[in-house]
């Protein structure tokens, strides 16, 4: 997601308690494109395992829905507490939550209930927003303290939310008799960012969870989840695919690629020929191909990746559909493209609409999809599943 001032990268990493099959924490983010708004909820369900997972998942999805509908946050908090199923043994229902709602201006509203307090890292220090604490009555007359805060995010700010599996890791060890706690965690965050000031949200979240696991000697004593929000300069990428419908737009396409400030991909034989001709950059086709299911990549100076068109796009779309994490194995043309795409925030797709007649031959051994459809599918996946900002320009 992005707003006028910066791009927001939001990533979660989690590990389950040792010997459990599922994680009892849940973390969910949703980008509301029309409002340019990002909502994230992290919840820790009572206990561990499947039951905890159900509680946490219900909490995150309810909180997300209500917040997206702009219901007052107190009502949301109250509703969640009253709705969760009651544990038969302990006769309580319980899950914690932290809700962050960031609008298009970078203003964040935060609601916290029983999770470790969220951490805001700004300019080498930790920023403490003022909090308003309100008491809600839970079923059975028990009281619950919910805290509300607002903050204005700035470029290079990072917000870190964790479940208590992180802050309570190492508990009982001589070094940390009361656990790592927020202080230990903060120290680690500051150190890590100092060593690598541009560390991505995903890397930081993963490092924090790994460290908690080391604190627990490799056997986490509770589910550990970390969500990191990083406000930064957006990274841009342009893909040129397909020849323009009118030939006199060839030079325009080439100029756009040449002047683009960011990474560049050319996808398609004819397209690369056009750009090579217009910009006078030779194409070098390499025969060394790690993925025999696709034609090999080529090289052009100043372009990060040059691939074949429709077959490669088809595979990219399949890979994006199947991916469940941001780690990609393999180094074929499609994998290289997916890696570049996922490492970017804003993607401009220059889609040429001239149809390649050779591709329409009914005698072909495989059916070639229409480029425009594949592009639309890829764009939708990148936008909805990977929260990227996409612009498509047809020419």
């Amino acid at each position: 997601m992005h707003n006028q001032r910066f791009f927001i990268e939001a990533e979660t990493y989690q590990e389950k308690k040792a010997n459990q099959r599922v994680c009892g924490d849940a973390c969910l983010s949703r980008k509301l494109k029309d409002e340019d708004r990002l909502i994230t909820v992290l919840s820790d369900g009572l206990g561990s395992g499947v039951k905890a997972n159900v509680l946490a998942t219900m909490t995150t999805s309810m909180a997300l829905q209500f917040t997206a509908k702009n219901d007052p946050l107190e009502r949301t908090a109250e509703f969640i507490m009253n709705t969760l199923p009651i544990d038969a043994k302990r006769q309580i229902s319980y899950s914690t939550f932290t809700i962050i709602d960031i609008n298009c201006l970078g203003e964040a509203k935060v609601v916290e209930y029983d999770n470790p307090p969220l951490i805001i890292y700004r300019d080498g220090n930790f920023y403490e927003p003022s909090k308003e604490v309100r008491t809600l009555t839970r079923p059975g007359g028990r009281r619950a303290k919910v805290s509300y805060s607002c903050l204005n995010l700035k470029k290079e700010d990072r917000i870190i939310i964790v479940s208590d599996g992180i802050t309570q890791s190492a508990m009982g060890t001589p070094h940390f008799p009361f656990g790592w706690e927020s202080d230990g965690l903060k120290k680690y965050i500051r150190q890590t960012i100092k060593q690598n000031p541009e560390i991505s949200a995903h890397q930081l979240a993963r490092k924090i969870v790994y460290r908690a696991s080391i604190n627990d000697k490799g056997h986490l004593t509770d589910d550990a989840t970390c969500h990191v929000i990083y406000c930064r300069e957006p990274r841009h990428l342009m893909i040129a695919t397909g020849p323009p419908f009118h030939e006199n737009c060839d030079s325009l396409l080439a100029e756009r690629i040449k002047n683009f400030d960011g990474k560049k991909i050319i996808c398609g034989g004819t397209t690369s020929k056009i750009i090579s001709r217009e910009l006078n950059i030779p194409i070098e086709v390499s025969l060394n191909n790690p993925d025999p299911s696709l034609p090999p990549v080529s090289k052009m100076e100043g372009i990060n990746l040059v691939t074949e068109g429709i077959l490669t796009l088809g595979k990219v779309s399949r890979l994006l559909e199947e991916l469940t994490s941001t780690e990609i194995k393999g180094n074929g043309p499609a994998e290289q493209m997916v890696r570049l795409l996922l490492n970017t925030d804003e993607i401009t797709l220059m889609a040429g609409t001239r149809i390649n007649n050779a591709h329409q031959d009914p005698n072909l051994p495989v059916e070639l999809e229409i480029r425009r459809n594949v592009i639309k599918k890829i764009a939708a996946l990148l936008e909805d599943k990977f929260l990227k900002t996409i612009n498509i320009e047809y020419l």
Partner: protein
Amino acid sequence: MTKPTITIKICCGTMCYIMGGAELHLLKEHLPAHIAPLVKIEGASCLGVCQDDNEDRPPCVMINDELIPNATIQKIITHITKQL
């Protein structure tokens, strides 16, 4: 050492690839030992054959400056042998 005297450009375009060109990329492994050192293999972008409406069909290769349509590994080897 013998210098390569023959350059083979294998078309790496979409049409050639799906019409059997993928196999041609393995050409190097199929060249007889006495020919292999004389041949330099490169990739090329679409050679244009697929766009024309004549008999010539993909997959195709260029052997030196001669275009070979409907190429197979066997056809290429026969062609080179003739040239040597």
